[in-house]
């Protein structure tokens, strides 16, 4: 994997909200096909880092390069960039006034100009992939949280993005619904999808991630192979964090 092409290059990223600095210089390189797990306490900057990558937040300073090109806030470049970077939210954010299939097909039709027929065919295939083929005509409110999150994943996949960002995809779910969502993500990992996953599911992270980054106080404090981070963390803060979250299990 270290020889595949560089997809994302994040350099010294800072982000402040009013007087609070949430990111204090994050640098990270993501290669094609890599799965990166982002762990850390709430407020450590995981979500903000993801949101700066697809520029839902504008970084205060620092740069993000996608395939070598600097990302900017110009409208055209932005809409182009976001087609390449899919995102799955903690709280799903499905469109409640549209059916499941419409949720999946709206953006391809509007943004990529794909015909309704083709979008529907592709959308149905994607719903099959997340095991929700029979729910195409339901409304989001008729689905369980786990089903909704799987629709959200299908919706992100429908744009055929180069990279997927997961912002704590199972944190808003009842415990018994977590498994079905993780199963879908696991499958994506096996197919070689490039993904950045902010998560509190440590076992899952250790299993699917190629590389794990521990964020603390707006910085990547430690990064490396999952086994290394989980078995033999170098930083006391990392040890402390892992002891806390794993100890609770």
């Amino acid at each position, binding site marked *: 994997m270290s020889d595949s092409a560089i997809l994302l290059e994040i350099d010294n990223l800072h982000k402040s909200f009013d007087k609070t600095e949430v990111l204090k210089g994050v640098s990270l390189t993501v290669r094609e096909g890599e799965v990166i797990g982002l762990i850390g306490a709430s407020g450590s900057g995981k979500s903000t880092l993801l949101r700066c990558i697809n520029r839902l937040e504008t970084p205060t300073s620092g740069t993000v390069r996608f395939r070598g090109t600097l990302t900017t806030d110009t*409208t055209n470049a932005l809409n182009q960039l976001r087609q390449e970077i899919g995102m799955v939210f903690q709280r799903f954010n499905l469109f409640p*006034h549209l059916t499941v299939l419409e949720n999946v097909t709206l953006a391809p039709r509007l943004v990529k100009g794909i015909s309704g027929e083709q979008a529907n065919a592709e959308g149905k295939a994607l719903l099959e992939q997340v095991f929700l083929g029979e729910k195409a005509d339901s409304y989001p409110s008729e689905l369980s*949280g786990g089903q909704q999150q799987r629709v959200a994943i299908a919706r992100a996949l429908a744009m055929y993005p180069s990279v997927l960002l997961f912002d704590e995809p199972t944190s808003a779910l009842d415990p018994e619904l977590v498994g079905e969502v993780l199963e879908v993500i696991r499958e994506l990992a096996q197919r070689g999808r490039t993904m950045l996953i902010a998560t509190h599911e440590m076992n899952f992270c250790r299993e699917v991630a190629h590389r794990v980054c521990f964020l603390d106080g707006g910085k990547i404090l430690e990064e490396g192979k999952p086994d290394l981070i989980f078995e033999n963390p170098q930083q006391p803060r990392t040890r402390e964090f892992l002891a806390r979250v794993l100890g609770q299990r």
Partner: protein
Amino acid sequence: MKPVRFLLIALLLSVTTVSSVSAQTTLETIRQRGVLQIITDAAYPPFESMENGTIVGFDRDIGDEIGKELGVQVEWTSTDWDGVLASLATNKADLIMAGVTITEERKKENAFSRPYFLSGQGIARRKGDTRFSTPEELVRGAFTAAVQNDTTGQFALEKRGMPLNRLNRFTLLPDAMMDLQNGKSDAVVADVPAIAALIQKNYPDLELVPGGAFVLENLGIQGRLDSLELIAAVNIALDRMMGDGRYSQIYAKWTKEPATLPMLARLYEIRNEGTPIPSEWEAKIKRSLTQPVAVAPDTKPSPSAGGSALNVRSDILREAFPVLLVGARLTLLLTLSTLILSVPLGLLIALTRLSGIVPLRAVATVYVEMIRGTPLLVQIYIVYFVLPAVGISLPPFVSGLVALSLNSAAYVSEIFRAGIQSIDAGQGEAARALGMSHVQAMRYIILPQTLRRVLPPLTNEAVALLKDSSLVSVVSLSELMRMGREIVTTSGAPTTVYLAVALLYLAMTLPLTALVRYLESRWGTPSRKTASRGKTA
């Protein structure tokens, strides 16, 4: 019913009232309570106008003298001309003194005193506008005339074939004069003394068409047909004032002209042009007026008999309903047209206020605050009467539509703004994260959800608008409420008419709210619950 027969019956009724021992006549009631209630429309100089909060004018002075003759205080009230006749019919007043012309039509509804002023209808025009000089030329020449609603000026033009669409009718005569000054109408037809007084007071650019009155009229004081003995007492009082010079003095004071001998002679000559009163009554009442009345301290000023205020009269309803329907149609047309304009405009203002373009946002904010901070009535007046001063002259319907739309748009924009802001921020983020543009996210994600959410408050606005549209009657639009008031002035049956008006408003608002309830229940399933469920992180 022919007037003669009607009068006979009325007389018979009155005679029974007077002769019966127990029943108290209106005159007795008034003398006992010590207060005579006179209603007027104080926007009609020189007869009556407001000065520093009090009603002054020819009628005021004459009326006060009548009070002295009856040995009572006079309580003056001013209301719109439309409401003046209704007040008499519902016993809210004993007499009308408002420079009312004695006509055979009006004699059927109410009693008139002897004539107390010689008047006539004249034409006002903009100075130097010599295109017409008679009412016939006004009608033939396709000119538009402004009149005070339900006055002999209006009747004179209608009798000569003036079509309704060239007749701008106003509640107040000064508004009609303003309409002429603004160039929205070509002439005002009204009482010569009233026109002359208004021109002298406020409208230097207008003039009276030379030659004075084209038709002569006698003015009288009005009372109810069931209180003829009060009219008799008024006649006696007027006689005495004309005889001892008080009348001449008041006349000269308000018309700025001396009361000539031929004029007084003419007034004497036509003394019987009012409602006929048996001559033996006069002697009887003359006698009673000289006797002091024992004032019963706990006698309430109760309404006298015969008002029939709580009767719903089906005969009047049958006649009034088609007319009310015409008014309801205008109300509905105006409301729907307003909504067609104000909903998109309100949405645009809301989007502007939420946009990042700061100067536009400021303009929209100022607009909304200005509209919300001033009464709709004032806005209607400004659109119709003030905009002509800066060269924007709109016909009545357009003025009403513009004022209502501008007003409604401000409220609608606040509804939309609140609605858009109530949509979860995650919706917009999800749309933008998929590569949708700001406009696409608005159009396909935010607004469809907003529409469902703002439907109930928008319905409230539509219902409120439907009712508020009655205010446009001030710019001479005959919507439902105005039609109702007009029928009340002619029929004297406020209970029947206003209940019918209320039912018609309900008939328009109920289907609207029902439709919205239906839409809500249809859209309810997917939009009520939010997409996110489960615990929060």
